[in-house]
């Protein structure tokens, strides 16, 4: 196991290099002088020169890159022009909303998706299967933001069960806070559930032909035990292996959902920073998401190797 973890850790390094180089080059690819764009038309030449110096833009490109990576290692992501504070604290201010939203949606997506997919597979060809699969393909075809608009129209405008938009911080009470996240999480979660249901159904159909299922059945185990113990376990392992993909979809979807429901999360921050030309924040958000993403994928790989020993010996 130790050997496997070491090998896997080494493989992660190149995966980190690409986003870091890309994010660094991004700012340098901007048309015109980034300092001028960031400060706007009203800036004086002095202010521009000062910002250029603080961004290191007056240095040669290789030393800029070296300095930038050096600062990253000290968790220094730069300074936000709009918020007048460090990018790191701007990101941590917004991260908790995105974290809550993603976790809630993920839980919802796994529960609904696995249940739906298993039902469809076990009643294959029957009406349940048809209904679940039709709902699932509709789900993967809906734009998240439009699904969100419809949820707002139904549950916040027509029947006023939930607030139209906005976020109540955790500090103002746990339940009030979660209530403000119900519609957004429903929106993001149901669309991911559709994806998971499709995946679960094909996994179960695969597993059903495996010898261990036949053995379990021929031992005379009740069908309930076969499904819950043997099949469900295989499904969870296969979902574990695609968690990376699901998380990427969730994080991408969260951007649009946060904007639709006016939640002050990282997605909203990213979109607003694009409008404000706050380049250090854009870089910081992309870097933070990709680092989280890589870290979670690594963790999943370790878990996967723990659950499925075959992986370790490959």
């Amino acid at each position: 196991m130790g050997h496997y973890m070491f090998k896997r850790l080494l493989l992660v390094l190149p995966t980190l290099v690409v986003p870091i180089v890309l994010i660094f080059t991004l700012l340098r690819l901007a048309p015109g002088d980034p300092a001028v764009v960031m400060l706007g038309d009203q800036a004086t030449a002095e202010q521009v020169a000062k910002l250029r110096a603080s961004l290191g833009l007056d240095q040669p490109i290789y030393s800029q890159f070296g300095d930038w990576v050096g600062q990253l290692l000290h968790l220094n992501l730069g300074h936000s022009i709009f918020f007048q504070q460090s990018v790191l604290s701007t990101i941590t201010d917004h991260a908790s909303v995105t974290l809550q939203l993603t976790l809630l949606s993920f839980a919802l997506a796994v529960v609904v998706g696995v249940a739906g997919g298993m039902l469809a597979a076990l009643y294959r060809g029957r009406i349940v299967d048809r209904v679940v699969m039709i709902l699932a393909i509709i789900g993967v075809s809906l734009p998240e933001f439009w699904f969100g608009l419809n949820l707002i129209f139904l549950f916040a405008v027509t029947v006023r069960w939930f607030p139209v938009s906005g976020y109540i911080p955790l500090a103002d009470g746990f339940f009030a806070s979660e209530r403000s996240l119900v519609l957004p999480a429903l929106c993001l979660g149901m669309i991911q559930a559709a994806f998971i249901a499709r995946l679960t159904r094909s996994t179960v159909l695969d597993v059903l032909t495996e010898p261990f299922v036949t053995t379990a059945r021929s031992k005379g185990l009740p069908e309930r035990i076969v499904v819950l113990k043997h099949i469900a376990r295989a499904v969870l392992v296969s979902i574990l292996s695609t968690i990376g993909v699901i998380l990427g979809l969730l994080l991408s979807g969260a951007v649009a959902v946060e904007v639709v429901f006016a939640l002050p999360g990282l997605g909203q921050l990213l979109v607003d920073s694009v409008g404000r030309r706050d380049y250090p924040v854009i870089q910081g958000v992309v870097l933070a998401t990709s680092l989280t993403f890589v870290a979670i994928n690594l963790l999943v790989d370790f878990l996967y190797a723990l659950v499925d020993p075959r992986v370790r010996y490959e």
Partner: protein
Amino acid sequence: MSLEVEGGGATSDPVADSPLAGRRKLRHVIADHPSMIAAGLMLLAIVVAVVLAPLIAHARPDQIVVTDRLKGPSGAHLFGTDNLGRDILARTLYGGRTSLEIGLVVALISVGGGTLIGLLVGFYEIVDMIVMRIVDGLMALPALVLAISMIGVLGAGTTTVVICLSIVYIPRVVRVIRGSVLIIRKSTFVDDERALGQSEPYILFRHVLPHCMSPVIVQASFIFSYAILAEAGLSFLGVGIPDSVPSWGNILTDARSYISTAWWMSIFPGLAIALTVLSLNVFGDGLRDMLDPRLKER
């Protein structure tokens, strides 16, 4: 599990090659894949409607009529009007031109580029080492986050949206094609060609590429649908196609502010996106089942 479908045509069976059998085969395809055919017809209808936009909609998409602000669906405006009095039917149809064009171009570039890279990567191990690390790195960034940040810095516009979405989807195609090439490379007919003294590029394009066509076609239909969703999302967020050109995404931007008073502003353009993407997905699923019979009935 019916294995008799496609692929059998590769052998030179005189009966299968006769025109009569061809027609019978087509009828089989229609009978075996009714939902795929329905989805194909739906797509065709959407494309025709979008191309014939000037004949269907009476108004121009950017014609502002202040007195007609926020009118519900009626005989004069089938889909109603928006907050500036613009006809939503016209905007949906003309917006479809932009969205479908972008989806198609992104699909062609991503699948073309991805296939080429996938072929080279799967065939030459040195290229594989380097390129696959870059592919992994690019896939370590959530698609929409990567696209928003690139567009945010490069500036919104049709070209940047196409370039950024292609960069997002090329790695996905590379992975799929590489997988197929790695399997085909090991088959005996590739060894035979080598023994006959054929050059590597000749084998690659003349023999390996045709065997990758099924995944290529399936990927093209899925990327087309992803790209339409992505463009809509980006433009809705205001970081895609600028407001001066209607697209399915940017006509929905204002709909959010009027959700409690003018539901028609969001319903119709959204339905257009959902129907198109749904048809593409059903069509793609059907293609996959047809071209890869092993996956059928899953």
